[in-house]
């Protein structure tokens, strides 16, 4: 009997670990960002750079981050600048990691707003606000009204103010949890709420795949054609070669891999720095990436775009409604067609909100670690300081809500470009500064799986060349347009895109000053230790 009980406990423990590790990767990127990008860049055509990015940069860089972080942690550093100092053995290397704290903090500023939308949608399913009937246009009108995309400042008045209330709830909840350090609660979210989200998504998936042709008057809008809208590699008026020759599709695919795996952020470096030296990082990172890939490709890829096509028609391919329009407009249409749709609508958006909470909490830790190390202050003071900074940023994003320009601009420059640069720096540090031999030793320590030697070759040569080549191509083709867009201002409207970039620069300067302080403190500590030791 005792043996049976032991076996049961071991199984429960293993299943718990699997749920926690795979669940931790699930977030808004899987169900909202991925389908939006896939629609924008051509469905099946997007999947080619996506899979290439997953294999050549996503997974290798996840291993790089976990290994670098744990290595830095064993030498007493927890922030990305500190870890770089330890790994590179050079005080100036800390400045190379400036994007480590910047990226998660900037992303948090808009991520928390989207988190508020999820909570708001869940509430509106409960309260009946989203029982809008069979007209798809009603859901679109609701979304634009809810997020305040008609004009700047809309979220501070009228219907749009609802989003502001939910933002306040999300913000308060996040900072309460991080202030109190309720890691057990976060772990519980991942262990139970995330699998519940996946089960809910599987139920929705079954409903989507059995939609057939909901409107007999529009026979073309059927589920098979919907799947074609997502997975066909060619689109009307565009060949596969034309789609793949656009450097932006490669940058966007890589950006999505980074975003959803949370690599290139500086988040994993910080968290893995708290691990024990013999903990596994290889299988942990791989399982997390696989769980994320499953949610994104299988669930995200088979639900949102096919459903959007069935209800909204070919327009979602010809004129994609944008990253968020896809999830917040098409999915409510699907729930409207389901038995117990409002219940599943509530459940889906509420669980998505919980997924967002776990992700947004992890975005705060890198900056907290840097404040503690750089300023010598405690956790609570660090949290309060970070709360002030992110509150200003989040209100900026909420106020400049017209066409979601502020959100889009920060997502592009930080959620794509900065992550790209940070990932490139990390892979070069691992492959060329630390050295691939020592790097793989660090990765292999305590590993539950054997890492093929080919991974070393990929990290040292393939990943950096891939990253740099695409980035240069993108700079040549797209940077001028993006820079010009910063100056495009409608009459009477503020230059929101330029202001958003200005906000990024201000935060960048702020973190540079903090790193400068941290470097001075570390220098003094090292000098004192040198004096003490003979």
């Amino acid at each position, binding site marked *: 009997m005792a043996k049976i009980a032991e076996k049961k406990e071991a199984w429960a423990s293993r299943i718990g670990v*699997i749920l926690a*590790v795979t669940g931790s990767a699930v977030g808004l990127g899987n169900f909202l960002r991925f389908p939006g990008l896939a629609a924008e860049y051509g469905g099946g055509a997007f999947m080619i750079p996506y899979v290439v990015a997953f294999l050549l940069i996503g997974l290798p860089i996840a291993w790089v981050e976990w290994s670098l972080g744990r290595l830095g942690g064993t030498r007493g550093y927890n922030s990305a600048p500190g870890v770089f100092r330890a790994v590179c053995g050079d005080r100036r290397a800390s400045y190379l990691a400036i994007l480590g704290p910047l990226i998660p903090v900037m992303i948090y500023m808009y991520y928390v707003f989207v988190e508020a939308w999820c909570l708001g949608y869940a509430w509106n399913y409960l309260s009946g606000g989203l029982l809008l009937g069979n007209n798809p246009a009603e859901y679109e009108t609701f979304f634009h009204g809810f997020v305040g995309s008609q004009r700047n400042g809309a979220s501070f008045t009228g219907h749009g103010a609802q989003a502001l209330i939910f933002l306040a709830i999300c913000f308060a909840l996040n900072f309460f949890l991080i202030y109190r350090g309720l*890691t057990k609660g976060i772990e519980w979210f991942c262990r139970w709420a995330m699998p519940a989200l996946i089960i809910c998504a599987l139920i929705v998936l079954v409903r989507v795949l059995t939609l057939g042709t909901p409107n007999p008057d529009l026979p073309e809008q059927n589920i*098979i054609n919907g799947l074609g809208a997502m997975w066909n590699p060619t689109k009307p008026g565009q060949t596969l070669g034309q789609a793949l020759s656009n450097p932006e599709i490669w940058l966007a695919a890589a950006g999505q891999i980074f975003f959803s795996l949370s690599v290139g952020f500086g988040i*994993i470096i910080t968290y893995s720095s708290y691990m024990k030296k013999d903990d596994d990082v290889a299988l*942990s990172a791989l399982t*997390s990436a696989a769980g994320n890939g499953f949610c994104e490709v299988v669930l995200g*890829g088979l639900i949102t775009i096919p459903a959007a096509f069935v209800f909204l028609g070919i327009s979602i391919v010809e004129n994609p409604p944008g990253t968020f329009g896809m999830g917040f407009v098409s999915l409510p249409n699907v729930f409207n067609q389901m038995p117990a749709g409002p219940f599943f609508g509530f459940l889906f958006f509420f669980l998505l909100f919980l997924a967002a909470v776990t992700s947004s909490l992890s975005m705060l830790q890198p900056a907290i670690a840097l404040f503690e190390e750089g300023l010598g202050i405690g*956790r609570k003071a660090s949290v309060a300081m970070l709360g002030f900074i992110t509150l200003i940023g989040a209100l900026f994003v909420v106020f400049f809500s017209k066409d979601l320009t502020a959100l889009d601009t920060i997502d592009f420059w930080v959620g794509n470009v900065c992550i790209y640069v940070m990932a490139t720096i990390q892979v070069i540090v691992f492959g060329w500064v630390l050295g691939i031999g020592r790097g793989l030793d660090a990765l292999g320590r305590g590993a539950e799986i054997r890492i093929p030697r080919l991974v070393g070759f990929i990290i040292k040569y393939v990943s950096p060349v891939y990253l740099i080549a695409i980035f240069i191509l993108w700079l040549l083709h797209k940077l001028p347009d993006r820079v010009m867009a910063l100056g495009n201002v409608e009459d009477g409207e503020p230059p929101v895109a330029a202001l958003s970039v200005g906000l990024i620069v201000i935060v960048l300067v702020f973190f540079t000053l903090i790193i400068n302080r941290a470097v001075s403190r570390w220098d003094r500590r090292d000098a004192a230790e040198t004096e003490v030791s003979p």
Partner: protein
Amino acid sequence: MTPAGWIIMTLCVAGMTGLLAWCIYKVVATPGSTKHLHSQADIETPDVDDE
């Protein structure tokens, strides 16, 4: 849905599902894996205990 679309969908869905299934198998089949595997969510930061 074109034949190329079916091929891409099948490869992507089967590939990601297969990879996840293999990882789950490794976790289940490896003795003591539960003590060494971690996610961001279950890593405790020591600064919480400091205050």
